[in-house]
């Protein structure tokens, strides 16, 4: 598709509408909202890692509700089976055949709550569905449909009886996001508003699923000039030579960063990527894919260390002007 035919301002307006819609509920978390919209636009999946009660589920719910599409929530537990996620074949006595009963993954926005609580087998079943956008059951492949986005959450503190996601599976998430504590003013507003369960939140969809799919198809056409690509690669390359990391970011990470930058450019009403887009997305896109050489016992501390090093790399690598 020709890049000059991208209706970038229209996409920006639509996404701004979603953003405003979500921000009505999630106060003071503009960066997290923007990042999750980038994930949505890039057809990627997001992992929200933060302490309980900071609005992870609410964010995912608001995202789904702002979009005129399906939403399902899976609470991951250690006894959750793959069939609980993807569905199960049951014998239909009348038809005298097995029919597939679709699981909660067959939706548009899937909230996988506390994903690290499930066994690796169940995690793998979800991750395979995330990767391919399809589910295989009894030798049959069933497409999940579009748009499809998994918003997984995990608690970085409570590690009792959890199964941490391996690096290879972390790589499947486009971004890892953090909510963080709200600031004083925002929390005051939350308090004034009164506590609502997430499914009681009154929020109207502003973008249809079909519209969003159209926007997603335009993301790969967003122009990335060679010097910006070089800049991106230099950053990724720097993670590979950084002594603090056990291994650098993969080629999939480079592709993810590029796609995310393209989506952010669209979100801002541009049909081309600028280096600032790349710089802004380095931490959320790369941090969860990198592991420190000297592992720290504390996950939050480790996360801060990785993000600190990435921040320094972004400062060090000169932007092309």
């Amino acid at each position: 598709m020709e890049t000059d035919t991208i209706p970038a301002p229209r996409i920006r307006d639509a996404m701004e509408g979603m953003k405003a819609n979500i921000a009505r509920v999630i106060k003071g978390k503009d960066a997290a909202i923007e990042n999750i919209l980038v994930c949505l636009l890039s057809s990627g999946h997001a992992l929200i890692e933060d302490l309980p009660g900071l609005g992870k589920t609410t964010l995912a719910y608001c995202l789904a509700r702002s979009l005129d599409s399906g939403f399902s929530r899976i609470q991951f537990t250690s006894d959750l089976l793959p069939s609980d996620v993807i569905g199960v074949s049951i014998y239909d006595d009348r038809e005298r055949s097995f029919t597939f009963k679709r699981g909660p993954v067959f939706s548009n926005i899937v909230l996988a709550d506390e994903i690290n609580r499930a066994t690796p087998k169940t995690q793998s079943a979800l991750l395979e569905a995330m990767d391919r956008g399809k589910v295989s059951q009894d030798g049959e492949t069933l497409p999940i449909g579009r748009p499809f986005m998994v918003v997984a959450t995990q608690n970085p503190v409570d590690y009792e009886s959890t199964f941490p996601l391996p690096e290879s599976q972390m790589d499947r998430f486009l971004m890892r996001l953090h909510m963080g504590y709200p600031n004083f003013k925002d929390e005051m507003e939350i308090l004034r508003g009164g506590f609502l369960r997430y499914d009681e939140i009154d929020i109207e969809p502003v973008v249809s699923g079909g519209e969003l799919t159209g926007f997603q198809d335009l993301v790969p056409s967003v122009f990335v000039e060679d010097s910006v690509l070089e800049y991106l690669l230099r950053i990724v390359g720097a993670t590979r030579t950084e002594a603090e990391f056990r291994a650098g970011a993969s080629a999939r990470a480079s592709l993810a960063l590029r796609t995310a930058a393209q989506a952010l450019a669209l979100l801002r009403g541009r049909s081309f990527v600028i280096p600032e887009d790349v710089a802004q997305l380095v931490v959320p896109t790369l941090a969860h894919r990198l592991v420190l050489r000297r592992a720290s016992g504390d996950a939050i501390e480790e996360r801060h260390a990785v993000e600190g090093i990435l921040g320094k790399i972004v400062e060090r690598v000169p932007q092309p002007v």
Partner: protein
Amino acid sequence: MESRLAKLDYADLYRMKWILGGLLGLLSLWNIFSLDLGLDWMVRGAAILMMAAVLWPPVAASLPAWFWRVQTPVIVVFVVSDFILAGGDFIPPLIRMVILLALLRTLQPRTRREDLQLVVLTLILVVVSGVLTLEISFALQLALYTPLVMLFLFVVNLSESFSPEDTVPDNAWKRFCWRRFLRDVRGLFDSRLIIFSGVLFSGMMLSASLLFISLPRFELGQTLPFLTMQARGTYTGFSEQITYGDIVSIMNDDSVAFRADVGPVRPRRSPYWRMLVLDEYTPEGFSVSESLRERGRSVSSNFVAAPAVLRQPRGGTPWTVYFEGGVSRFLPFPGSFGHVRFQSRHDVVVGDATGTAAMREAPGNVLFYQLTGLQHADVLPLHEADEPLIRALAGEASGGGKKAYPLTTLGLPGDAASLRVLDDAVAAVRGGDTEAMDAETFGRRAVALLQHGRGYSLRTDIPEGDGDILTRWLDSDVAGHCELFAGAFVLVARRAGFPARVVVGFHGGDWNGFENYFMVRNRHAHAWAEIFDPEQGWLHFEPTPAGLSGAIGQPSEEATAGGTQAQADRTWAAYMDSLRVIWYRRVVNFDREQQQQLVSGIGAVFQTVRDSTEATLRSAFSALREWFGGPWDLRHILILVRNIAIAVIVWVLFRVALRWVLTRARIRSGSARTRAKAGRFLRRLRAAGADRESGGPDSARVRAELRHIRYGPVVSWPEVDAVFRSARRAVRRAARV
């Protein structure tokens, strides 16, 4: 399709630097070869090694470490001994030392310091060899050296910015391949680089030319008298003692002896270039007598005037002679002259009685002199030195003792056999005519006698026997060459009582059809004769056959002996030679007079252009005024509207076409430059503080558009020039704030 600018790494620059350095070294040796420097093997060896350094850099760059350890003491010993052995002549050992140092610098891995040393050393070689030779090759050498050295310094500067530590890269020559290197270098040639380099070089050449034209003239040779050295040249062997065969041996050499600018029109007859007058007879040949030599008038000036008797009124076309270095110390003159003006002060011995002049020694490099008041008649007028001859011819006793000039012009062989042959010849010339015969008639008859049945040949087989070689030849009927004809003629004339002398020099020359001048080559060397006539002076005679008939004042276009016909030469070689004369005329010999002429010429051209422009504008303005002053009816107004409409349409079409062409060119040639320009504006805006939101909506718009050009796809770019104009304004505004 995005075009990418090629990128270099430090090793690439180092390789370029190495090869350019080698080329500089080679180029600086070019003119050294035309200097008689001695130790030729050293210069040749240096050139071969430099060539090896350029062609096989990996080999040259991997010289063993001991070589570099021993080179310093070896060079010190060589240079010191060279200076000592050279005695007082310090220029050749100095040049040899510079060559040696330049060679070492081209062979060694160089950092910035050594690169700059190489530039200085090669520059010394170029300038010194150029000043010493004054050859046109110096101009060519400079024209090549200048861009090369500019490129070299450019690469040195670039490599410094690449590697501030200024080290030699280890991997410079690993897996070096010429084909790949040349491909990489070709990739660098981008049209903008070539245009900028061209403009820079032309600007430099233009400013150098302006400096050259406008600087006060000064004579380098005069200012730096020690800067003289013998250029490698041809030695013709013209000397005060000519033995038979000398001229013939000179004629075997085809190199140019001198060039002569005689004005745009070729003279109707080939000039005789007199260099030396031989008055004294000796059995080996004719020579300049001691008494004639003593008569020479020493002048140390850049201006020589002939004595009053010979001095001609100034006027006519002056002839300029470009006399090659090392040819002879005797200067060629086409007949008698009024004044000679040299480019600088010279020590000259003027032979007033013979119409000749000589330097103290053969000039080391090309010598220029201009002749005015030339008299091309075949008579050298009487001079006071000829008085004794007039008296002798009148029968007055000349006194005893050794005969002095001009009585030496009556000397004859002493032996009876020779005298008998001469007597026979005189009788044959007179042909039984017992009346007193004047010199002119006798000369003409003698020429006829000599040429009767006798051919021209450079190889003669003179019969053995008694008597003088000339009389033996005269007695035979074998063919001869100019020396024999002239010598025999002189002896016959003298025997008949006419004082006579041999004149040697050149006859004719090749007429260069490109630049209209004579190229006189050594093969144009010639000998002829002069007989004294007490009434007129010394009469010119050409005894050699197939030349001038011998008659005075009869122009002839026929070929003369030795192929000295002045045919217009339009060969490739003549063209190359004409370049040399242009160099002499316009550059080396560019004096104050030419300077003034040129300046006034340029002034006249400007004046003409100004006058014609003014006249055109005036007439156009008056026509316009007349038109506007005319009656304003409907037709008048319609014409005005139509013209304005046409102008507007043309302007709009021009803008549209220009924009279309520029956009096409931008898409075709790649957008890297435009992107880079937009990036520069973004940087400047940032530096000026205009990237803050306080810059206002206008500034934000400009930044967004610049970002679009910098990072966006070409097809969706906003109008580039308009954006850049706004960016320029925004930068200025931000700078003011």
